[in-house]
């Protein structure tokens, strides 16, 4: 349970960091908060040849809101993002999700950008990036490029970050005026990985009906799964169902989610139980998001 030997660099600037990554090639691995990487090292599931420790890049320890987006720098810890009142007001889904990320002590050290780059299919923030359609900014000696959420997740624990690139920032759109969001998940113990989790985003039309409803699912696929639930819960398209139920037909949305997910079985839960949870949690998250949206519209 000790890390294997590796080379080590501790750059003092982004320019220096990407220069090291360019020189180390596929051997290089970025160390930020280390709350996922160091367990992998300790258990020898990962054996990178060279670690590039970015903990001195304080220029990346920022969280800001501007131009309709929340920007999170690569060295912003989960706890820092969670405690930021401006972020909580601009995009409440971020704090709703971060409260479910591990435990407070892990959140003190782990970085939000790092957890997204890690691309764990049971990660809350990967689901948030996918649901909100955020972007990840990647830097290398060749310059910068921006990757959208839909292109970013390639598979379990695999994201579109090349060996010579450093993810410097994640950008997430703020919550629209007549929209609401909620996160619901079930884990075996508080702070554990979710057996299944659902992040829901609901937008209302002028009459207060559902004009758009989407949800992101964690722990049921190799990458964050997005399902459009608008029609299932009687919103938009034709508007036929809207008059019938101001609250939307959330049970139908739950049934659609159960039909659409194809989870696997493991030590923690059977596929059937995960499928059941996808349905139940869809209803809970949608109800929460709907109440949130109505509360914001009334306010």
């Amino acid at each position: 349970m000790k890390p294997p030997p590796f080379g080590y660099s501790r750059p003092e600037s982004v320019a220096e960091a990407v220069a090291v990554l360019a020189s180390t090639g596929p051997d290089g691995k970025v160390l930020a908060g280390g709350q996922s990487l160091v367990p992998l090292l300790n258990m020898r599931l990962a054996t990178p040849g060279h670690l590039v420790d970015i903990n001195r890049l304080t220029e990346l320890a920022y969280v800001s809101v501007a131009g309709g987006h929340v920007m999170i720098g690569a060295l912003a810890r989960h706890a820092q993002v969670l405690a930021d009142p401006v972020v909580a007001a601009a995009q409440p889904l971020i704090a709703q999700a971060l409260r479910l990320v591990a435990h407070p002590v892990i959140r003190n050290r782990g970085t939000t950008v790092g957890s997204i780059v890690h691309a764990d299919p049971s990660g809350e923030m990967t689901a948030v990036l996918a649901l909100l359609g955020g972007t990840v900014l990647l830097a290398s000696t060749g310059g910068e490029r921006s990757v959208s959420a839909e292109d970013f997740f390639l598979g379990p624990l695999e994201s579109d970050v090349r060996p010579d690139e450093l993810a410097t920032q994640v950008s997430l759109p703020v919550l629209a005026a007549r929209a609401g969001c909620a996160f619901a998940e079930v884990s075996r113990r508080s702070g554990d990985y979710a057996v299944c989790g659902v992040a829901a985003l609901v937008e209302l039309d002028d009459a207060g009906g559902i004009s758009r409803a989407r949800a992101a699912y964690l722990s049921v696929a190799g990458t964050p799964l997005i399902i459009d639930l608008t029609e299932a819960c009687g919103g938009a398209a034709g508007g036929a169902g809207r008059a019938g139920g101001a609250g939307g037909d959330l049970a139908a949305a739950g049934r659609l989610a159960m039909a659409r997910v194809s989870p696997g079985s493991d030590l923690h839960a059977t596929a059937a139980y995960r499928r059941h949870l996808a349905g139940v949690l869809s209803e809970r998250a949608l109800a929460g998001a709907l109440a949130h949206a109505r509360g914001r519209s009334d306010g």
Partner: protein
Amino acid sequence: MASASDQSGMTQSSPGLFDISLIVNGALQTVRVPARRLLSDCLRHDLLLTGTHVGCEHGVCGACTVLVDGVAVRSCLMLAVTADGARITTVEGLAEPDGSLSAVQQAFADCHGLQCGFCTPGFLITITAGLAENPDPSLDEAREIIGGSLCRCTGYQNIVKAVLRAAELKRLAEQ
């Protein structure tokens, strides 16, 4: 490839070894460590501060929790080289200079918050940081503070009581 010392701005005294300084419980310590040395092992093996316990070594149990610049972190999930220059507080640094127990330590004694004691250093550190942030936790908040630490003896009830008792002791001391 450039050597690590060139790119890191650190002193690499001999191949693969780094000279780092830590301020541990108020005392400056300089240590020569390989990059792969965990902070937990640096404290225990290099500095002989064996109060920091090592349980799972992958961030689950919380026994190795220490304060790094005042913030509670898992010392088994941090490299000693990353901590270079930081102020570290371990369980050995919690008592007052005259040896009297801190409020959290006293509360554990008052409430029987431990049995075998293996997890206790991590709990003491975690609760010390938790109460600094939230001096008057509710019962649920007390449970949230300790949610990331495992104890196989107590069933947690007395540890939760100790969190609330420690908050009370701190309030009484301030009056």
